[in-house]
């Protein structure tokens, strides 16, 4: 039984994709902030990659100093609003809240954070200004969370910043990747605009930087370059039928969903291949788009999935069915997907084994491959002296985020291989400090 009717209008889409962390009302924020214990050396703070002083901002909300609370947040995290909405708080700050140990509901830190920062964005309350110009220029590639965070920090040191962005909008995967029920397009864009108005970095849109010549020019015109280019397209699974019509990569499918909302196509039966958070998102999203049936197929067992438990719960609640210990061998169909042929698997001492003769086909009219993202190797190879690790991630100095080419710094998914928005923000802020150090 599908839980969701196919949305045919903006309103119906918003209903199906309603925010799982909606903006708190003032009364909610007051009561929730009252519960915080103001722990000493609070474990929630240690669990936040950007180290926001959580007990302090919660107390500020409680005493009616909501703009002060937002300042506390922004002092540590330039995308405090987006993070409040999209962070997997269950495994970060809220997961570390001491209340969990007595099975009391942890403080809703993410929503409180969003409450404070939304108020400042809505009322355009400004906290930052650019530093006195020091006659240095940095090129930032990519206007995703990493690029924006780095740009903000550089501007505060008086460095001029030009961001080159391939797309026509900022925010990277926070706009094109994160599930629409976590953050709306407007929210993702408003925060960047709010920061840009305060700090005045330039964003040059529709500009894909990739050739040797592109980088040579940048090196000529800028004192340093920051790479916040994230990851690339969906990994191919290298099986027959992968190029059939209606077989999508998850990243591409989600990006289309974020842009086209209810106009995004879905199927009667959708099979999602993968066991990570992106697979959970793609499955939930298909269900909320009104697919008749959504099957999440994973090679190993339920408990071996990389996805967070709460993400799988979210998918199950949306009506998604799990199919475990099956590996896809072929996507069937002539020009259009008609099904997926699986083989059953078992894990032996951690090694995946295919069980011969157990092949079977499940019919479907759409397949979404959530099998990870490619690295942007074509871009990286054109940067002289850049080094990557065995997984294709750019190697950087842990403290300064400087790459093997001293003029280049990097942070975010491109160095981690794919983490969360908050990690990109934290690393990129540190990288900006590295750049300031390098330029002085």
């Amino acid at each position, binding site marked *: 039984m599908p839980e969701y009717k196919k949305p045919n209008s903006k309103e119906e889409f918003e209903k199906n994709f309603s925010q799982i962390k909606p903006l708190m009302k003032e009364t909610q924020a*007051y*009561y929730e902030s*009252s*519960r915080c*214990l*103001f*722990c*000493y*050396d*609070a*474990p929630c703070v240690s669990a936040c990659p950007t180290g926001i002083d959580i007990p302090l901002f919660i107390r500020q909300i*409680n005493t009616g100093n909501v703009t002060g609370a937002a300042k506390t947040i922004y002092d540590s995290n330039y995308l405090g609003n987006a993070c409040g909405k999209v962070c997997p708080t269950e495994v970060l700050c809220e997961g570390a809240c*001491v*209340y*969990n*140990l*007595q099975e009391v509901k942890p403080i809703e830190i993410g929503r409180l954070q969003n409450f404070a920062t939304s108020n400042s964005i809505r009322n355009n309350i400004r906290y930052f200004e650019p530093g006195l110009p020091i006659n240095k220029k940095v090129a930032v590639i990519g206007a995703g969370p990493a690029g924006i965070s780095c740009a903000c920090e550089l501007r505060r040191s008086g460095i001029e910043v030009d961001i080159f962005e391939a797309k026509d909008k900022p925010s990277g995967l926070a706009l094109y990747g994160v599930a629409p029920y976590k953050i709306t397009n407007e929210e993702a864009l408003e925060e960047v605009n709010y920061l840009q108005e305060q700090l005045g970095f330039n964003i040059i849109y529709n500009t894909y930087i990739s050739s040797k010549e592109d980088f040579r020019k940048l090196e000529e015109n800028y004192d340093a370059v920051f790479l916040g280019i994230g990851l690339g397209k969906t990994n191919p699974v290298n099986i027959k039928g992968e190029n059939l019509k209606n077989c999508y990569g998850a990243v591409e499918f989600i990006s289309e969903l974020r842009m086209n909302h209810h106009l995004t196509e879905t199927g009667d039966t959708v099979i999602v291949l993968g066991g990570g958070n992106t697979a959970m998102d793609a499955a939930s999203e298909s269900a909320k788009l009104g697919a008749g049936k959504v099957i999440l197929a994973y090679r190993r067992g339920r408990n071996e999935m990389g996805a967070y438990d709460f993400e799988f719960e979210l998918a199950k609640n949306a009506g998604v069915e799990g199919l475990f210990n099956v590996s896809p061998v072929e996507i069937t169909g002539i020009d259009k997907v008609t099904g997926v042929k699986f083989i059953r698997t078992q894990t032996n001492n951690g090694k995946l084994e295919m069980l011969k003769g157990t092949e079977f086909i499940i019919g479907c009219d759409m397949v979404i491959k959530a099998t990870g993202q490619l690295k942007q190797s074509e871009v990286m190879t054109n940067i002289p002296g850049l080094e990557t690790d065995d997984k294709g991630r750019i190697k950087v100095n842990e403290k300064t985020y400087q790459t093997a080419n001293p003029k280049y710094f990097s942070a975010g998914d491109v160095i981690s291989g794919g983490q969360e928005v908050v990690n990109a923000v934290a690393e990129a802020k540190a990288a900006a400090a590295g750049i300031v150090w390098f330029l002085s």
Partner: protein
Amino acid sequence: MPDLKINFAGIKAPNPFWLASAPPTNSGYQIMKAFDLGWGGAVWKTLGVPVINVSSRYGSVNYRDSRMIGFNNIELITDRPLKDNLREIEEVKKYFPDHAVIASLMVESKSEWHQIVKDVENAGVDGIELNFGCPHGMCERGMGSAVGQEPEVLKMIVSWVKEVAKTPVIVKLTPNITDITEPGIAARQGGGDAVSLINTIQSIVGIDIDNFVPYPVVDGKSTNGGYCGPAVKPIALNMVKNCSLESGIGIPISGIGGIENWRDAVEFILLGASSVQVCTAVMHYGFGIIREIIPGFESYMKEKNFNTVNDMVGKAIPNVKNWENLNLNYKIIAEINKDKCIGCQLCYIACEDGAHQAIGLSKNGSRVPYIIDENCVGCNLCSLVCPVENCISMIRTDNGKFTETWKERTDSGNIPVTFDDPLAGGLNHFVPDPLTALKKP
């Protein structure tokens, strides 16, 4: 089944839970409704020459998500004509002959006192309460706490009332005084049959910091009001205790101030009250709170084998001593239950910054703090700040065989008398060396 019936200074009631003279007792409608729900008595909103009130009238102290932990008002006595009140008193008594209806009164001259006492008794009240407590508005006109603060005047007025009163007279005391027993003694000497306390405490609950006006605001201005509600209970309990201990009073006490649930009522009674009165809690939650008070109170009585309310009155009084008679050899130290601890470390920072540096933080990554037994003075602070029920307990460490009080030590000349006396209690207590501890050059 324990018996809740009381006879308070001659006033009979089905239980000791009464409504204090205040807005909840403003009318016959409200009092009948309260009696229907289980209240045992009501002290009518103070009668006298009717007043004109302002708006707004109330202010509140909120603590985080708790509303009205303290409450203040700038209202005066009743603003309704006496004849309406008298008619309603009669009606209430007709329907509730066994409930206690007490008229609170406040007037000026002897003849007015005589007249109004007769009027309310003719209407059928079971007793009279003299309002010498109102701390605002009325006292500026020479009534209320202006009288309550002058024991001689108070005594005189009580005696005027006693000249005509046929029903018991309760004298309501104001807490806005240094020693509550002085007006208490005067009440007794004037012939009063009982005292009730406390009335409200002079207060300003807060300021509108944008417009520079205290609350409650009346057209951009304000005045001090009377404070009540849960926040005043400790002050009221102490004053009730003082009156219980004062032999010059020796008449029944009706306890008032911050009572909201059965526990509060029990506490007042254990310190010597034999009825209790409630105002703010009803203004906050309505008469229905009696549904929680009665069964809670009854099951406590059963558990403790009290058959009547009188059995409980003053049970805690023998355990109230002057400080000099407390045992100096009693020693306790804190103990943390590791399984309950949630690692908030509030105990650590409270003891470190606010007490005796007797709690340490683990170096092995655990967030559970530990007690440094030698440094712990047994002050309780950590156990009070700990958010987990029964997580920090205070454990006795002396053997209980030797008691010694300050008084005994004074009598035997064994107390510190010079500034650097070797008998100083904290002589060898550990305190960190500030320069080393704070890494100062």
